[in-house]
């Protein structure tokens, strides 16, 4: 019964189409459940969907009309509702659980819905011309939608794939390519089988004889081309990825500390993503943080004015910067004359490539840590900082600049913008104010009030012109890069030494156990002024008006997962201690196979495939009867021919095929099979049958060695057998 439902004598590749559609249904059910909990087991939903595929495929081969099929749909729905209604009416309340039937109904509804959807789509597939094209478009659209979400080269979701990449130590881009290729391969195979299956309907049932060798050559070429395309695409992607990641611009703030170059961009702050950039672990409390709950982590500073923008000046001036890679060590010198500062130790585990180490200012020392998970963290270091511990209100009466500076340093930090308008505006806004810190506050407040935060200012600026002008003297739309430049220009115009700090700005209120997850969207640039006896202090613009922003919630699950990788190991907390404790397993944790399991699974699959091939070739030896030996012998020879590219064509009888086989090698064994099947009193001798099979094999063995090797390795006969093809 099941066998007859799963095969159709009229349709080539019928069973393959069913298998592919069923796999699609299973994948869709599990994927949907990952995206939003369905409330019903995806396994049950898949079963409903697969039943819809099989039933609709079978009924579509009969004379049932479209209208009758629709009516059957409606009748089934009504019937199910009616049955549940009756059960609800009669049974609810009898059991202590009032909604046991309703519960069942909700689960059944979803399974039925899956069945109806897949049955409808399958019905259309078999009955409507162009349905395959439509499906191809839908599949392509889904693939685009799924993969477009990963254009930042980072696998954010589904989480299981992302976790698998971490577990296996595969770069996310590679994982993306692997999954993309798998999906593409699946879709291509499906479309191939689907088009084969619907072709007879389109062309009318006609017999086509296979062109043996061309098929083999064509398949090989197709595989080679596909491999080549995947290789070229992944190579191009890697190249593009590397180019893009070299800049690693997010929020308009890039990386890199090249003399005379700015890592900041003015055109757009788009590209800021939720991609994890690093994990900070505070090794101590920081209750004196004057910027609480925000925390500034400085990576670089731009103090030289290039005539157009602020650029990196090098170690000659900004001596407080470590300017070392995250894989290096650094030892600075503490400036003991600076105002209240507190020691703050941070362990920093980077999750993305960084050119420079970053830390809370001032880092006095950076030492390397042993990377607890090299497949996950790019680098691990600990920064010893003396962090600000002064209340911001205490700055109000202080002077700016440092009397210990040489004239050269002083003039460096006071280098003015050639455009007089900055000075004019700064003076106008600070008219009547004498205290420099109050002046700073007045200018910052002005930008807070008037600026509009947007990720896309869309200013039309000549590459040689000052990109801040359209912001400050134009529409006031911009982002941190514009704000920081505008403030620094105006500070300097008023004689206040200033520079731009770049790095990360994060919210400590989102920390857990002192762990903070940095995202690329936390990249930031801010203005800094040098306050006498205090050092460089950030003065940041926080616009009242926000047109668009890139705020995203911290992925707490990821944060906890990363924190887990820093947890003490077996040496300190042996798992034996809690072996029998219930609740130790995270109920929401998804099982992710490790490398070993995957290798064993792959090995198992390989062994299974080899066994299939061995069974095809040598199964006849185990057949208990002569007729069985004949049938399996036929399969043995036919599968050998199949692997050489000679297969039975659609509509061709076995006898016709045997006549077409090379030297009619298949004819004797075919005659024996036909005899055992159709003769009223078959009289087969097992030895004779075996001799015929041996003879066929012997005749087929007379080919060059390379041909025999290729034949043995060719998996075509396996796929044909598993795909439900006939011999």
């Amino acid at each position: 019964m099941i066998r007859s439902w799963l095969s159709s004598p009229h349709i080539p590749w019928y069973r393959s189409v069913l298998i592919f559609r069923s796999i699609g249904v299973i994948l869709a059910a599990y994927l949907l459940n990952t995206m939003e909990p369905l409330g019903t087991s995806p396994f049950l939903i898949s079963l409903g969907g697969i039943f819809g595929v099989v039933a609709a495929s079978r009924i579509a081969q009969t004379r049932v009309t479209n209208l009758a099929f629709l009516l059957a749909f409606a009748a089934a729905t009504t019937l199910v509702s009616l049955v549940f209604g009756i059960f609800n009416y009669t049974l609810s309340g009898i059991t202590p659980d009032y909604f046991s039937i309703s519960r069942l109904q909700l689960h059944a509804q979803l399974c039925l819905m899956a069945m109806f959807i897949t049955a409808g789509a399958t019905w259309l597939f078999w009955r409507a011309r162009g349905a395959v094209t439509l499906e191809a478009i839908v599949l392509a659209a889904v693939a685009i939608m799924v993969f477009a979400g990963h254009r930042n080269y980072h696998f954010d979701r589904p989480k299981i794939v992302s976790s698998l990449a971490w577990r296996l130590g595969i770069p996310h881009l590679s994982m993306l390519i692997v999954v993309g290729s798998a999906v593409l391969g699946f879709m291509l195979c499906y479309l191939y089988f689907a088009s084969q299956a619907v072709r007879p309907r389109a062309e009318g049932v006609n017999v086509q004889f296979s062109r043996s060798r061309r098929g083999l050559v064509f398949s090989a070429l197709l595989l080679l081309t596909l491999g080549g395309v995947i290789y070229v695409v992944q190579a191009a992607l890697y190249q593009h990825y590397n180019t893009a990641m070299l800049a690693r611009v997010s929020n308009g703030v890039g990386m890199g500390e090249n003399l005379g170059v700015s890592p900041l961009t003015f055109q757009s702050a788009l590209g800021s993503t939720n991609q994890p950039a690093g994990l900070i672990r505070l090794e101590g409390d920081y209750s004196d943080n004057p910027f609480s709950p925000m925390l500034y982590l400085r990576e670089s500073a731009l103090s030289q004015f290039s005539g157009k923008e602020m650029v990196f000046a090098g170690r000659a001036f900004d001596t407080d910067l470590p300017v070392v890679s995250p894989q290096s060590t650094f030892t600075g010198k503490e400036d003991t004359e600076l105002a209240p500062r507190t020691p703050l130790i941070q362990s920093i585990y980077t999750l993305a490539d960084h050119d420079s180490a970053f830390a809370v200012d001032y880092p006095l020392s950076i030492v390397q840590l042993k990377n607890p998970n090299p497949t996950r963290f790019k680098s691990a270091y600990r920064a010893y900082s003396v962090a600000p511990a002064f209340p911001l209100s205490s700055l109000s009466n202080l002077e700016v600049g440092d009397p210990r500076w040489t004239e050269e340093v002083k003039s460096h930090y006071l280098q003015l913008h050639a455009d007089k308008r900055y000075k004019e505006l700064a003076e106008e806004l600070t008219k009547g104010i004498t205290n420099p810190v109050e002046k700073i506050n007045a200018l910052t407040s002005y930008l807070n009030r008037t600026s509009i935060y947007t990720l896309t200012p869309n200013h039309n600026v000549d590459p040689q012109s000052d990109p801040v002008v359209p912001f400050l003297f134009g529409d006031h739309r911009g982002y941190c890069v514009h704000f920081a430049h505008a403030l620094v220009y105006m500070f300097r115009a008023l004689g206040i030494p200033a520079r731009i700090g770049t790095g990360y700005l994060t919210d400590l209120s989102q920390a857990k156990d002192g762990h903070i997850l940095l995202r690329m969207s936390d990249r930031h640039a801010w203005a800094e002024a040098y306050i006498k006896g205090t050092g460089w202090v950030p003065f940041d613009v926080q616009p009242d008006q926000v047109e668009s922003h890139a705020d995203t919630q911290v992925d707490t699950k990821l944060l906890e997962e990363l924190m887990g990788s820093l947890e003490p190991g077996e040496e300190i907390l042996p798992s034996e201690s809690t072996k029998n404790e219930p609740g130790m397993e995270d109920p929401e944790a998804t099982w992710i196979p490790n490398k070993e399991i995957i290798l064993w699974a792959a090995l198992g699959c390989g062994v299974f495939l080899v066994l299939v091939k061995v069974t095809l070739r040598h199964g006849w030896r185990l057949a208990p009867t002569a007729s069985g030996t004949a049938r399996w012998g036929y399969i043995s020879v036919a599968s050998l021919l199949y692997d050489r590219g000679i297969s039975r064509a659609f509509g061709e009888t076995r006898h016709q095929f045997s006549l077409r086989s090379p030297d009619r090698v298949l004819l004797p064994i075919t005659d024996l099979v036909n005899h055992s099947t159709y003769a009223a009193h078959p009289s087969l001798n097992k030895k004779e049958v075996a001799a015929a099979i041996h003879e066929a094999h012997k005749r087929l063995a007379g080919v060059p060695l390379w041909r025999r090797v290729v034949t043995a390795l060719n998996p075509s006969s396996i796929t044909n057998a598993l795909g439900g093809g006939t011999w």
Partner: protein
Amino acid sequence: MVTKYLSPLCCLALLLSPVQTFAQDAQQPPSQEKSVDDPFDPFDIFGFDELTPSTDDKNKTAEELIREASLLLATARPLDARTKLLKAIQKDPEEYRAYYLLSGYYLIHVGHYRLALKYIRRAQELFEKKNGKPPYKSHLLQLEHGNLIYYLSQCRLNLDNYQGSLDALDEYHRFGYHAEWYPGARSWVLMKLGRLPEAIKVAREGLLSGAESGRTLNMLGILLSMNDQPQESLEVFRQAIAYEFSQGSDGQPATPLNNAGEVYKEIFDDVKAESTFLRATSLPDGCEHVLPSLNLTLLYIEQLKTNAALSTMDAFQRCIAQFPLRNNEEHAALVNLARGRIDLHTGNVDRAITRFETALQGTQWFGKIGTNQDDLLVAATISLAQALLRQNNLLRFHHPETWREWAKQKETIASNSIRAWWLMRRARQILIDDLHDIEDLTIRNTDSLLEYPTLGEALAGLSSSALSRRIEAQRAKDPRVIAGGFYDAYLAENEMSWLFPSASNEKFESVMQRGREGFDTLLKTHATLRRMSTLATDSERYRELAYRVFYTAAPELRNYGFRLPVRIDVGSDPYSLRSALEAGPFREATGEGSLCSITAADPSTPGKLALRFSCPGQSSKNRLAEGSTPGEVVNKLSDVLFREEIRNVGPN
């Protein structure tokens, strides 16, 4: 709750480690430049001494580090304490007290219960390794062993291993240990195991035997409330409140006050509930915890006092702003849920949707009494589904300016309908599956975060016979008369969805009449609007009900997709204002009665169109709207009439 009751144990730990000279760790940076391994590296603990940079801690013994950590924990410097404890473990991996304190740190400060359990089990092993198997003769060892068992029971409790937690407490009892916290902790676990009478007995005995009064009284009050003894519960809470106030600045009276408010709310004594919650939120320990504010907000929403609800949430967020390091995760979902409901009832539906989405995405920390993620999930899911349906109604009344906007509108309506259907279905499934046959059907169940007046919308899709039997069973055990109105409303809504209009109309009329004036405003408004759906829009009854809603909760009229009957006088109407108005949330009505009217007005800007809305005797409802096109002016008039402008603050 956990934090409150475990904090004293930190102090106890401190007492166990006599404080010696304490010098704050200067945490000087290393002087050498060579690369060193992680001194905190759990995989290389034995190389610590050789590899660690020179620090003051390096010269301290594990015991000294533990003492300092104890003090740091008691002085709210948990990260410093954690670091010192880790260093102590690296110096002496056999020192159980470091593990014990780290377990407390993860249990109290972080809420990482699995790690806390790992530490406490390790601490137990090391303790027994050092001191042998219990029982112990030394009083100090007994005290330490008792504390280890207590942490173990708390870790298990937080991991929902209630039997394991009880086993630990049994072990504590078996060794003859005694502590003030024991009766409260034991009754709590028994409550979680559903052994309510036993839990009450333990709490009562504990009080008689001199157990920690504040905690035990509070626990007993909760237990009595759960055991349907509200008056006894209130009496116990009164004692708990008095006790906490008697503790001066160390007392935490907001907790029993909030619990008492919940009991008042449950017995529908809204006035006392409001005053109790207000008192709780005005106290230092009450303003920073979300529950009293949330309870008060929900009470106000049921009374449709949206401004008061808004002020309550504002006050809470102002208070919490004093604690910038408090994790947003702690309350963000609940705040978004409450604010979203306020937005929904004031016609700010788009913002409500955003807030509900955020509430659904965010996880929420809960105490271990009863409320859990499923309660939040179901409340946010139903709220979001309602908001999507309301948005559809708003869009149907909205005049699109361009064909793109029109197409977008249609697409949004279609997707909203599908999503709302799915969310309601999902909510029903959670109510039945995860919340045990809709346990939240008990109106104003303190465990729940549901909006009871409109819960019927979710229940409407359930089987009529099953729901009616479930409600009958609920009625049989619920003596509260006022709750009957809610049950009627649910049944009516369900009957309406199964096309039994006459039965449902009768029930809705009854709810409209029986609902308490000034308290059940949202329930009455909801019933009125549902009743209106079966009335002819030109009937006198429809007009009467529409104006009743318009004067009490104008945004709800448009939210539910009803048109307000008005007199329209737009003169010769060269711009087809009349048809634009009738395509919006208005319907032209004639005849007698005190109808509001819409008339064409002189625009302030030449070339624009203006409409004036006025109501006889209701000057506060008078509005003027201007626009360039008939559609725009009607949209604006609709917005000024059916949307209350409220500030957009807080997390979103």
